[in-house]
């Protein structure tokens, strides 16, 4: 694979991190966290690269990546919409919120919209249960007590660029 300029930059950032931590025991998961932060997801090449750098078999790296929900082996939307289907949210109607998101965006769960802007992910408890049902966009934008009627507004905000714009 020809590594283009931006990719080179990204690999460099990853290298720097690995250099810093590679002697710590059991560091693979932390490296994968960093790699996903840099690349947005974990393409096969990146997994192979990490395996080589840490001196681990690719199969082991791949095994760990697929075990944990957090690690993505497919690209995700620019805005990942995570909908909690934990029990506390479920009894407050999270499934209807989920359905509305899929309907409005015209995708299946885990699928990316054609413009690359959104993907919808059912997730487990987000630890904000007292505000159920809970939707998390990206890593930090929490929405509580979400009703299906709020869905189009939330989507529109991210089409415009973000929560507060």
């Amino acid at each position, binding site marked *: 694979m020809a590594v283009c300029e931006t990719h080179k930059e990204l690999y460099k950032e990853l290298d720097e991190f690995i250099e810093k931590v590679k002697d710590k025991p059991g560091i693979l998961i932390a490296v994968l966290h960093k790699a996903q932060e840099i690349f947005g997801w974990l393409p096969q090449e990146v997994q192979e690269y990490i395996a080589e750098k840490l001196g681990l078999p690719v199969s082991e790296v791949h095994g760990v990546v697929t075990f944990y929900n957090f*690690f993505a082996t497919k690209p995700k939307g620019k805005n990942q919409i995570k909908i909690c289907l934990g*029990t506390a949210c479920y*009894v407050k109607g999270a499934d209807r919120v989920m359905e509305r998101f899929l309907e409005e965006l015209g995708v299946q769960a885990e699928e990316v919209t054609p413009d690359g802007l959104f993907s919808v992910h059912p997730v487990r408890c987000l630890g904000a249960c007292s505000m159920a049902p809970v939707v998390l966009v990206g890593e930090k934008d929490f929405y509580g007590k979400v009703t299906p009627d709020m869905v189009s507004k939330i989507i529109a905000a991210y089409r415009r660029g973000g929560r507060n714009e």
Partner: protein
Amino acid sequence: MTPITVLISVDSNSILLGAREFANYMKDLIKEFNLDPIVTVLETVSLGSYNGVVIHVLPDDVYYSVKSKEQVRKIVEEHLLKGRQVWDLMVNKELIRPAEKFEVKEVRIVTRNIGVIDPRNIEEYIARDGYFALSKALQMKPDEVIEEIKKSGLRGRGGAGFPTGLKWEFTAKAKADQKYIVCNADEGEPGTFKDRLIMEGDPHTVIEGMIIAGYAVGATKGYIYIRGEYYNSVENLRKAIQDAYEYGFLGENILGSGFSFDLTVRLGAGAYICGEETALLESIEGKSGRPRLKPPYPPQVGLFGKPTVINNVETIANVPQIILNGADWYKSIGTPNSPGTKVFCLVGDVNRRGMVELPMGVTVRQVLYGFGGGVRGGRELKMVQTGGLAGTFIGLDKLDTPLDYDSMKNHGVSLGSGVILAIDDSHCVVDIALNVMEFFRHESCGKCTPCREGTRIACEILERMTKFEGTAEDLDYLRKIAEVTADTSFCGLGQSINVPLLSLIDNFREEFLEHIEKTCRANVCKAVLKKPKVQTK
């Protein structure tokens, strides 16, 4: 002019409402108006129950609830700048802190600093007796520390209730060149968010507890294994650890005692099973989080094969206060077999949802009505799940059960992680059962067949029932599946699926039978033909 302090509630609920932005916006405005010499803005954790983000202005002792930046601006321009209170945004103190009206009194041990101090300021923690327990412990002999914890009767708050002092003693007695303290902060139980609020609101308590544990058992290294999704907790913990190093509470030769302790944060990556202690150890070692065979138990063979104490966040947060105030004080709270307090998370169909710390032995009803203010919107309470997803579903007849580590044995009501999920009569029992089992199916790590297959079959049966295609044989089979899976599974996940399933079937058998007769009294089941599955990979 008298200095003004503005406290802004930045707990998880408030963050959802924009508290972070409000706080930053307020700080910007204060600079803009050159108010910074007299006004200090502090972010605290929960200030109480509210609709908007609660702001407390001192020394005027005025509470506001704000929902937008404009309202923040109004408070700055009117109250802070001109000294005129903004009546339309003010909220009654009594409404914010209904603790006085509360039937059972809150006892704040592990939550005592939450909302009171700025979690990102180590000096405020120290001002509230922070790190005094550490200094006291370091003057005791390690086995005296263990003895004190044993005497206090503290039991693990992560669900299993194992005596903490005993666990420490096993680890202390194991011979090894290296030992570890691990804090289990992988809180993944749906409905539970107490560990998160403790770490966000008072990270130093957790750190102090871990150092004391390390000293007691002879461990020099600690890991906090925390859910990767808990951004704020991670931030606050990392900051707190850094400060603790700077102040000499972590690192070499702590407070001149000769004892050294290092602490690292490790992020989980979204697998519920990693909350199980041996799976968690695998994960810290950088592997897939599949449980290990027990015995040997972690106090003998734990992290990297070395003796390891694993304790829940809430368990550890109790430690400094026990050392500081003594085992006898601790035992005076709660019940004889379960001393101390429990942090409960009340969720579901109640008027007031949230977290509250109460003495062990309070009843489900007291939490539900005393703290929660009863069921929402005039509906009828149908059932309550206690203890987490692997906990029991109970009917109204069991609401007066006192909650402690014996309530499971004596009354069939689990305490678990302290969740209380209220479910009103708009919900269907079978549909809830399906949601619970889908969670287990998804989170089953797949290592052993009974759990992997048992959860799948249970889901299939329940799904048929919600489509009115289930038979009486199905119901019997479901029972059997639950029992066999529980008996033959490898770890606590599979071993506990019988608890929610059987309590549902036994306590609400009639509703299961109605589904075989093709009716659903809550009118849920005809509508759920296409349900999204909890399938993330």
